[in-house]
């Protein structure tokens, strides 16, 4: 009974009018499908969207999927970043609509970043321009600081100056040199405060800051350093001069040790100095005269604390106190402050002429009174020996003393006679200036007729050029 009308339009309309009962199970199927597939679909799309955003630089990004619609909440670092984030999600297959709830990362003005070190940790605060920079700085802080705890409290913000990364890395590298303190970048200004870990830390940091990227400048460098200490102790019993503390460099070291050996005629120099940066300006010009002042004490201590010079001890006789104080005040560079606490050593018991002669000979056996070359002026480095001679002379008040100058075999007779006498006179003048009566001394020039060593070498000649003290019992 099949005919052409069966396949006609009307047959199709008739059949289709009876398709409706299937709509009931279809609706049930639809409800079931909606019920079971929605959550997996959302999970799937969220995963794909997150993967799609990987290459886009965002902060605080959150993806919420409802059905096939994706809502993106994020902070972008530029308008371009926002657009590419949205485009990346739109490109995910299956996503129907993208709700753009992105915004630009807030701009910081001024752009401030800082790292603060306290006893237990280093805290990074302020703004970082990019997540990569933030991570890089945190990593650098961990690397620079070894085991110290690092806490990163920085927020991301726009508006960092060009070269921020290098500047921040450079400042972070200075943090290990601080015991405590803070380094700050405020736009292109750099500020530092705190206490350096070691002597010279301040100088090392200042030197490092010269490598700041172009455009950056140091607004404040208030790094303090531990005090620069230099000490010298004259021990008359052990016959030592002990040097401890710091000197700025090896030249200064050598200069100080050489000056000490020259100025202290009897003491052995015990050198415990170490080389450290951070000496106050003019340190060496202060240390050498201060050692000269210490040499004139019987026992004493010299302490440099930064620019404060403390000299304490016992002078050998009354007059020496005023002299050494005045000399040192004149010789110290202006920025140094002198605190002298010098007393006089109690006078030793008087001795007779024989013992007196013995004491003089002992002293002059240990050291030689030195003069400026070819002249009769006393070398200031001989003050220690001269003061000991004064002290001894004070112990034999009844003795008359010939101060004898002697020459080596060089030169003509007139010179050999004249210069030693002038030199002997200079020594007598020194003794008189120290408070001894001039009448007790006679300066005599003896030429070269009583050598104590051979005159055929420099060492022997130097020993022959000398001052001798010859004690005579005073005529009553």
């Amino acid at each position, binding site marked *: *009974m*099949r005919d052409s009308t*069966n*396949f006609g339009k009307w*047959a*199709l309309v*008739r*059949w*289709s*009018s*009876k*398709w*409706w*009962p*299937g*709509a009931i*199970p*279809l609706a049930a*199927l*639809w409800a*079931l*499908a*909606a019920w079971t*597939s*929605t959550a997996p*679909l959302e999970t*799937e799309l969220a995963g794909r969207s997150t993967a799609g955003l990987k290459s886009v630089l965002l902060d605080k990004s959150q993806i919420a999927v*409802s*059905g*096939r*619609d994706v809502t993106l909440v994020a902070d972008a670092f530029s308008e371009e970043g926002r657009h590419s984030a949205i485009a990346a999600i739109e490109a995910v*297959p*299956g996503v*129907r*609509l993208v709700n753009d709830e992105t915004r630009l990362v807030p701009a910081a003005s001024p752009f401030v970043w800082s790292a603060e070190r306290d006893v237990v940790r280093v805290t990074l605060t302020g703004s970082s321009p990019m997540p990569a920079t933030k991570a890089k700085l945190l990593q650098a802080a961990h690397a620079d600081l070894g085991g110290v705890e690092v806490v990163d409290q920085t927020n991301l913000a726009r508006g960092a100056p060009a070269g921020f990364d290098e500047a921040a890395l450079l400042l972070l590298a200075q943090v290990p040199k601080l015991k405590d303190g803070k380094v700050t970048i405020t736009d292109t200004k750099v500020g530092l405060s705190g206490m350096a870990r070691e002597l010279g830390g301040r100088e090392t940091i200042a030197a490092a800051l010269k490598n700041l990227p172009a455009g950056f400048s140091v607004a404040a460098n208030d790094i303090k350093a531990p005090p620069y200490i230099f000490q010298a102790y004259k021990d008359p019993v052990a016959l030592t001069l002990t040097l401890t503390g710091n000197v700025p460099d090896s030249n200064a070291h050598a200069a100080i040790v050489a000056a000490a050996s020259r100025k202290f005629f009897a003491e052995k120099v015990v050198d415990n100095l170490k080389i450290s940066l951070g000496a106050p300006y003019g340190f060496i010009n202060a240390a050498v005269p201060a050692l000269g002042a210490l040499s004139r004490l019987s026992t004493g201590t010299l302490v440099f604390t930064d620019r404060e010079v403390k000299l304490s001890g016992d002078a050998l006789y009354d007059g020496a106190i005023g002299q050494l104080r005045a000399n040192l005040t004149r010789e110290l560079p202006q920025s140094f402050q002198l605190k002298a606490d010098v007393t006089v050593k109690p006078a030793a018991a008087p001795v007779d002429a024989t013992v007196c002669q013995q004491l003089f000979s002992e002293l002059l056996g240990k050291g030689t009174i030195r003069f400026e070359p070819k002249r009769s002026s006393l070398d200031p480095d001989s003050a220690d020996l001269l003061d000991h001679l004064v002290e001894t002379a004070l112990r034999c008040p009844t003795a008359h003393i010939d101060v004898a100058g002697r020459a080596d075999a060089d030169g003509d007779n007139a010179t050999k006679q004249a210069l030693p006498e002038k030199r002997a006179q200079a020594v007598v003048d020194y003794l008189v200036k120290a408070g001894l009566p001039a009448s007790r001394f006679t300066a005599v020039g003896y030429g070269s007729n009583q050598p104590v060593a051979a005159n055929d070498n420099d060492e022997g000649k130097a020993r022959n050029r000398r001052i001798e003290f010859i004690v005579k019992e005073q005529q009553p």
Partner: protein
Amino acid sequence: MIFLVTFDWGWLLAALLLGFAMGWIAVVHRGHGVSKPLARWLAVLVAALLAAALARAVPGRPGYWLDLGLSMLGLYLIGCLIGSLLRNWVLPGPADAS
């Protein structure tokens, strides 16, 4: 759309098979059909829903459910058509006379 097919292919296939079965039965079904005015209204309703889906006017989950429902409906109807035509072609029966 391709995503929807790959993700919900099971449900869509179920709708197609349901349609095929319904189409197969419809040829010999003796019950009442949908009246013409109602069919017209239904067509308008489906067209409106289709327009809303294409315009992506419905947000969130209801939007997805609408897409899913329309897709299933479409495949159901295709299934019905195939079922009816096939039944009519394979087994021309006395029902045709009714």
